[in-house]
């Protein structure tokens, strides 16, 4: 993989981000609802309202507002949250690690689950095993992530599974305040296994809710790619070499089947990140998804802007990682 490739992708990210910034700005100016009205208590005078509008720069012309907005963005200044009265950048950066950790954990679950299903389906190709895998994948895929989240909560409540928390990120009784926000990783590094266990338990349900649909998609695509690879001449060669079927599926075919799967997983991962908005809310998980809903309800324009841009950066970064992983998987692309 060449550095020029990376550089090109990074340069391409700039116009993308600019586009997102423009769209966000325009959309938020045309949506109905007055943020100031939501912010201010009853009985405020017109002068109070005008004062607030001036404070948040809402009294300027749209064009000027846009120029200020871009200027601020360039400085990394996303403004002050209207509802929380705190710097947006600080707010978002404080919550971002939570969502990143959740997404990565969900991703691992999806890969492990989907990969196992695909391999099982490919191994038992044309037999009952394959049908079972197909059926399971179809069922899982039919239910969206937020519905899984609700189902899990229903389960926990109905079967009184008290051990599985359905709200928050860490138990109140665990005295652990991470310095980084990456609680799962940090607690492990600091050998605080009690904290790690607590965060893990809190994360399991939202992560599985996010992971299940993705796992089903991975299972399907990977199984098809493996099946396709299994018809190739080099697989015949592997059989003639005397390798077992398990080894042929897992080593000879899997490696070649990974490329299309990674492409799709990359695209789907962005959906997973998007899914955090609802799932985090359902589990009161303190990530940026959860925050996004609050921001929308409060018409907190600066915060919404900051969050949308953060999501955009996340998506772009994901796609970049996916592209980089091709080069690792496909020897042909390494010379490009």
């Amino acid at each position, binding site marked *: 993989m060449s550095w*020029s*490739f990376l*550089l*090109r992708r990074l340069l391409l990210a700039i116009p993308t981000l600019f586009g997102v910034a423009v769209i966000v700005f325009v959309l938020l100016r045309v949506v109905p609802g007055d943020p100031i009205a939501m912010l201010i208590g009853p009985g405020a005078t017109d002068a109070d309202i005008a004062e607030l509008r001036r404070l948040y720069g809402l009294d300027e012309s749209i064009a000027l507002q846009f120029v200020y907005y871009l200027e601020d963005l360039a400085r990394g200044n996303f403004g002050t949250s209207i509802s929380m009265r705190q710097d947006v950048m600080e707010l978002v950066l404080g919550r971002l690690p939570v969502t990143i950790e959740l997404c990565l954990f969900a991703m691992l679950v999806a890969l492990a689950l989907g990969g196992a299903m695909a391999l099982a389906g490919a191994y038992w190709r044309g037999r009952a095993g394959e049908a079972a895998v197909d059926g399971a994948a179809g069922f899982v895929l039919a239910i969206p992530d937020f519905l899984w989240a609700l189902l899990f909560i229903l389960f926990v409540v109905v079967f009184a599974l008290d051990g599985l928390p359905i709200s928050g990120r860490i138990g109140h009784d665990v005295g652990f305040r991470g310095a980084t926000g990456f609680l799962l990783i940090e607690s492990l590094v600091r050998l605080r296994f009690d904290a790690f266990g607590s965060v893990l338990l809190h994360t399991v349900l939202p992560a599985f809710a996010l992971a299940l649909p993705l796992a089903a998609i991975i299972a399907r695509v990977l199984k098809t790619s493996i099946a396709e690879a299994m018809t190739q001449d080099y697989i015949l060669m592997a059989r003639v070499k005397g390798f077992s079927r398990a080894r042929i599926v897992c080593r000879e075919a899997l490696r070649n089947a990974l490329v299309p799967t990674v492409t799709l997983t990359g695209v789907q991962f962005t959906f997973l990140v998007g899914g955090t908005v609802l799932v985090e809310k359902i589990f009161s998980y303190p990530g940026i998804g959860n925050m996004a809903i609050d921001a929308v309800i409060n018409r907190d324009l600066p915060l919404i802007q900051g969050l949308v841009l953060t999501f955009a950066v996340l998506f772009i970064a994901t796609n970049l990682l996916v592209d980089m992983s091709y080069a690792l998987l496909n020897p042909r692309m390494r*010379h*490009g």
Partner: protein
Amino acid sequence: MAEPALLEAAGLRLSLPDYSRKQPFGAAPTVDILHGIDLTLAPGDTLGIVGESGSGKTSLGRTLVRLYKPTAGSLLFDGQDITGLPEERLRPLRARFQMIFQDPQSSLNPRHRVADIVARPLRLHGRAATAAEARKQVDALLERVALRPVHGERYPHELSGGERQRVGIARAIALQPRLVVADEIVSGLDVSSQAQILALLRELRRDLGLALLFISHDLSVVRTVCDRVMVMLNGRAVEQGDCASIFAAPKHPYTRRLLNAIPLPDVDPDWVARTAEKELGETLTMNVKDSVALVTGANRGVGEAFVQALLNRGAAKVYAGMRSTVGYEAPDGRVQPVELDVTDHAAVAKAAAECGDVTLLVNNAGVNHNRPISADAAQRNARDEMAVNYFGTMEMCRQFGPVLGANGGGAIVNMLSILARVNLPMIGTYCASKAATLSLTQGVRAELAAQGTLVVAVMPAAINTRMGDMNPPPLEEPADVANAALDAVEAGEEDIYPGVVADGVSQGLAADPKGVEKQFAEYLPG
């Protein structure tokens, strides 16, 4: 030619972008595919184009029907210049030259019935107004290629390989073209289907007066359908002519290699081992008699001796290359002086264009500043020695390699020195330039082996010329060295060490390289 040519290509060149080496934001670099192809095809003519993968035969076929646009040269179809004709003006002409592709599986649309595939060009070019009329013509075409009307109802995947190729042929002749380019159309078929298709092509050619360009990797197949054949190697035509004469007496070594590689159905258990051995030890040789030679640095010393030796051996022509021809007296009418500075790229390129008939190249020009590495001007001297001895030889090989290839292979003689193998103190930079040139010679030899060019490295000890007076005695006579080099050309020897001193050093190097190095290190001139 009595008949006007149907297709006439002159100096056809083709370069295509190489996307595998494309850099971001930049244009893709190009690779040269065809290096100046000339061919003419009269109406009803059949020309076979033969070569191995990478020879450019398929690209040539596609360029001739203007699927690719030539980078240079001219292409005339039926007297009309189609070299750079834009596609929309080419389209009406396309009915008159058609192409049949190698892989019918991928060139026939799998979703269409055979009848629709054959009817498509008819409808497109307005040759059939109604569906019924088209169907009638399609049936006639299918019959023409020995398929039955029921085949028209089938899809390509329901046909055998031979049948699919017949559909390809039917589609190609639907518009009654005057020229058909058939690209490897029998390579995927077994012998029986192959024989059927070839018989069909002969028939069509006879009945429809088609001109046929038959591209194949198999010379023996070409012989059964073509009158003439052109053998391609690395984007050049190395041999072209009547099948009868080329098969009876192939001139170019590459043609011979291709012919010898075909296993004939005669029992011969030793064939494989024998031909493989021959291949491995295949010695390229060349007759100096009747050759056309070019000698660089021909006005003095060893160069002069080379010119004389060539004349003595009956060379047809000798180009005597020298920096300035002023005051040069040619020793014979066959000698043609050429102003040629080997360090000047443009001059070398010009010489290669002018001396297009060269079959034997003697790279003799060289300089020796005879100074130790510690000398004041060592840096400048070393650059000068490299410029003449190394870069000069390289440029000559580079420019004349294709010339020799086009003239049947030929030979290159690089005048080196035993000092290419071992360093003599006090002239270290000269030795280094010769060592580099020896390495270069080996590279050139490997690169030009496929086109049948013999590359000889001559490594004598000191020669009795002005240049050699600093070297240890005894000194070799220039004529002896030149004759030894020409002997090597005729015997197909690659590295020679003429004279007892050079021979002794070479044997010493084989036995004890370090010992020879020490021995030389002790020798200090003066």
